[in-house]
């Protein structure tokens, strides 16, 4: 928990607020845009959950790197959540695009989407 203590003690309130606001606004905008494109609650929920899990995994990774591997978390590490988000958002956009183009077909199933996108 040394990492959390360091952040609380050394980060200014401005830094902390801006960082939290940045990730929250990215999640909000992405989820809203995905909903507007797909008009599907399941895909929107999936996007939201995956973004939240990504943030959690990033956080856990930082703790593991810092406490187990004894690597100091520097400013460069701030790019990790952004880069991982870029890849996740691209994948979510792939899913949304595919769903949007095929949603007029009556028998579209999530299993088919999964097969089309992930099992190529």
């Amino acid at each position: 928990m040394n990492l959390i203590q360091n952040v609380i003690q050394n980060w200014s309130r401005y830094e902390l607020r801006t960082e939290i606001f940045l990730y929250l606004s990215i999640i909000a905008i992405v989820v809203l845009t995905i909903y507007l494109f797909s008009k599907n609650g399941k895909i929107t929920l999936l996007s939201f959950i995956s973004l939240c899990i990504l943030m959690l995994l990033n956080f856990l990774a930082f703790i593991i790197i810092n406490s187990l591997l004894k690597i100091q978390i520097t400013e460069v590490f701030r790019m990790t959540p952004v880069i991982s988000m870029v890849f996740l958002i691209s994948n979510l956009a792939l899913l949304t695009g595919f769903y949007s183009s095929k949603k007029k077909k009556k028998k579209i199933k999530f299993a088919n989407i999964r097969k089309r996108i992930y099992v190529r």
Partner: protein
Amino acid sequence: MKKIRFKFNKINWKEIFNYFVSVVISASILALVLISLPLTEKVSSSASYDLVNKNNMYWAKEYTLELDISQSSDIEKDITQLKSVLQKRLKQFDVEQSSITSYKENDKYYLKVNVQTSKEQELVEQLVKAPFIVTIVTRKDDVNYEDTENPLFPTLKKTMIKQSSEKDFRNVYVTKLKNTSGEYSYFAIFKAWPLSSKWNEFLNKYIGQTVGVSIDGFVTPVQINEDKIFAPSVSAIDEQYAKVTSILYNSGVSPMSYSTIKEEEKPLNIAEVDYIKLTEGILIAILFIYVYLLVVEKTRKSIILKSGVATVLTVSSWITYLKLSATPVDIFILALEVIVVAAIIRMITENTDSRVHITLLLTFTSLLCILLGFGYVKIFANDLLILIILSNLSLLISTYYISKVRKSLKV
């Protein structure tokens, strides 16, 4: 004698034009690749366009600030606020790395400000070292400001009466205006809150008189004219200095004064990357990915070709731009950008249904990171936004180019 007659078939101008465009695009791709490859500027002595590595521009320092807590009622709260003000200044000036820690020693409070940046040292120091406590002051009736024995009286805050502080203003806009000698120089225009009647009353009261702006105890006289524009002069010699002054005015109010008691050079903590080896590595990696895709035969050859050409075009045109414009680059960020853009191009080439979705969502993400991000995140997002546009453009060009070449070669 028999007359020789030449017989022309109807010329197909469209084909000639397509052929010409294909040749121009081929030549452009070749030129971009050659310019973007490392050390190619050594081939010609007439041009110098090597990639400017930011690593040589970095410097790192630690500043120890002693805080003046004599006016502070809640020390912890004021220290937290001061840390935010300083961090805001550094982030607004795009300082790459900075950290601020507070500590107490012998009943005195200190801040340690660590900075590592490629920005101009003098400007960054101005942001760290100046408390920049701004107050509007007026002259006292019982002080003789024309006294030749005390020529500094008009410039000292202690000889003035405090009227209002920086909190009373919405923002301060630093811009170039004509001065009394008719030349352009920088002024700070104070903008009050729309419903602030107190400020308007103050301006009306002192119309035609000289008041002052005190910054850290030193007063700059300001004449209030009929227009009621309150604009003290700014001692900025160029745009960068004006930007620093604007940040100092608009990054929040310092709750306490402080003085710099120690400054120490620190060893640099940056990723040393040999960009020649890195370029080779990236080129080989991209080549291997495409060879692998070709071998496993899970993607159509036309798509592999299209995304390959688009990737080469995007990456080479981006590096060419960086080289020709001599833009300082963090090599490790450039490497990340190339990897990300290669992946994005691959996605948008194969999944045409999702091209708009990917482009739009990544554009939103980049814009948010530019607006709210700091340091490396902001630099990365800035470049990513340009690369998203560039990759879409490259994809259009490569689609057009491949179809025209195929037509010309009758493949």
